């Protein structure tokens, strides 16, 4: 579950947390594109190091490192597959370039995961929901998102209560073979699902009673305005994009192994 730890929100306020999620998301997309543009390890190392000041400024180092650890398993798998492919297709030989290429592919994966991780670590669900509301996405989707997030802790508690209730009727979740253990989840899942359906019905009633659908032009209590930090990040992001495209088009990126 440590990968998910990197994606959870933390209530720490830093300059990064206060940045507009839309700008942050644009930054993440640009990192994504830049990572795809390069198969060489040097630029990818650069992109990876670029995350670090953000992580430090946002003071989310611990969570970020945890998500790195979580990604490590998949990363080593990617590395292994790449090495193996190169090994077998090049006639049972490995060159330094091959190793470098595999490392680059692995690093690309890590950069992608980590940039999303930083995004989610530094953006509260409220903020994200608000950003969604202020884009052209239909309000229903933003609403579905925020409501879902709002009910996650409620559902988690309910799942625990249901498990307790069924254990109190003699259900032993750990006993039995693999198949039996899966069947043991039925008495927990069904009440949870039924409860979720009932809850949705009640929510729908409450929504209707508070004039849902009254006006096509829905207003908002809050307004997301772009501040100086946002404009700065926007500028940085555009520079990164421009620079990456420029380098990709006009330069040959050197390999690291050249220097050894």
């Amino acid at each position, binding site marked *: 579950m440590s990968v998910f730890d990197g994606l959870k929100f933390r209530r720490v306020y830093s300059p990064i947390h206060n940045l507009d999620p839309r700008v942050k998301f644009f930054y993440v997309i640009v990192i994504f594109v830049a990572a795809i543009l390069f198969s060489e390890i040097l630029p990818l190392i650069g992109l990876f190091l670029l995350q670090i000041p953000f992580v430090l400024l946002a003071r989310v180092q611990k969570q970020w490192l945890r998500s790195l650890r979580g990604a490590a398993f998949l990363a080593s798998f990617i590395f292994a597959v790449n090495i193996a492919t190169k090994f077998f297709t090049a006639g049972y030989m490995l060159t330094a370039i091959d190793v470098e290429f595999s490392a680059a592919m692995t690093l690309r994966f890590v950069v992608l995961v980590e940039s999303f991780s930083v995004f989610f670590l530094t953006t509260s669900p409220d903020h994200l929901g608000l950003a969604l509301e202020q884009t052209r996405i239909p309000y229903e989707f933003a609403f579905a998102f925020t409501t879902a997030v709002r009910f996650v802790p409620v559902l988690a508690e309910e799942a625990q209560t*249901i498990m*307790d209730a069924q254990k*109190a009727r*003699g*259900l*032993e979740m750990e006993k039995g073979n693999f198949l039996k253990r899966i069947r043991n989840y039925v008495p927990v899942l069904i009440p949870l699902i*039924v409860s979720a359906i*009932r809850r949705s019905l009640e929510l729908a009633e409450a929504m209707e009673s508070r004039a849902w659908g009254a006006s096509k032009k829905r207003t908002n209590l809050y307004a997301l305005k772009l501040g100086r930090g946002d404009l700065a990040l926007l500028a940085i992001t555009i520079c990164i994009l421009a620079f990456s495209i420029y380098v990709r088009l006009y330069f040959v990126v050197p390999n690291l192994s050249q220097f050894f």
Partner: protein
Amino acid sequence: MIEVEDAHFSYSNRVEALKGVSLTIKDGEFVSIMGQNGAGKTTLIKHFNGLLKPSQGIVRIDGVDTRKTSIATLARNIGFVFQNPDHQLFSETVEEEIAFALKNFGFETEVIEKRIDWALNLLGLTQYRKTSPFLLSGGERKRVALASVLAWDPKALILDEPTIGQDYQQKEKLRQFIVQMQTQGKTIVIVTHDVEFVAECNSRVLLMKEGIIIADGESREILTDPEVLAQSSIVLPQIAQIFARLSSLGLPKDVIDVYEAKKIILEALEKRRE
């Protein structure tokens, strides 16, 4: 039957819910546990069937330390009825719902059949035997949950907030039912806010506040003591409220039953006429 010695318990977020609770509940007793939200009532009763184990101190059920045995084993003797029946109902028919625990406990098929018949009859649910529990009304679902617990005939019944959302008639029926179970020798523990209900039940009362027990005694002494009740943010039952104000006129203070109240007032009026 239930012994608690200096139990302490903290949840994972380091909130200490029980700060040294000690109590003994004998076989066949009827106890009501009351207190504000967060006082630790539900935490305490979850120790009785092993759902929670104390971090310090011991909880013993029939002499057995709850840390040395499984929840399923404890559940065989301690029937726990949760507040919301919808947290338990999942079967296609009421019959299967009742059979669930019986199967878990390893009862034989013929015994299961008999027990289902008995439980359905006891709770007036025989006509719903093959009905889906989800199609029943709120009150009926509560009865199904209760039936499914009684079916395995536990020695003790623990009810967490059984009166929530019930109208007066339903509460009366529940109260009579509890009394019936008690006369059959079962130990009954209820956790509730409902002072009027506890007043009518006339049980032993345990008051909790912030993780400890602050009072333990007969309902007629505890429910008529405004200071002790105020500490756990509980309001006096109406009859007790009335007699608390009339105590300056020489009337007794420890009255909680309306019929007793009537008698006392009539007597007082007679005396005044003489």
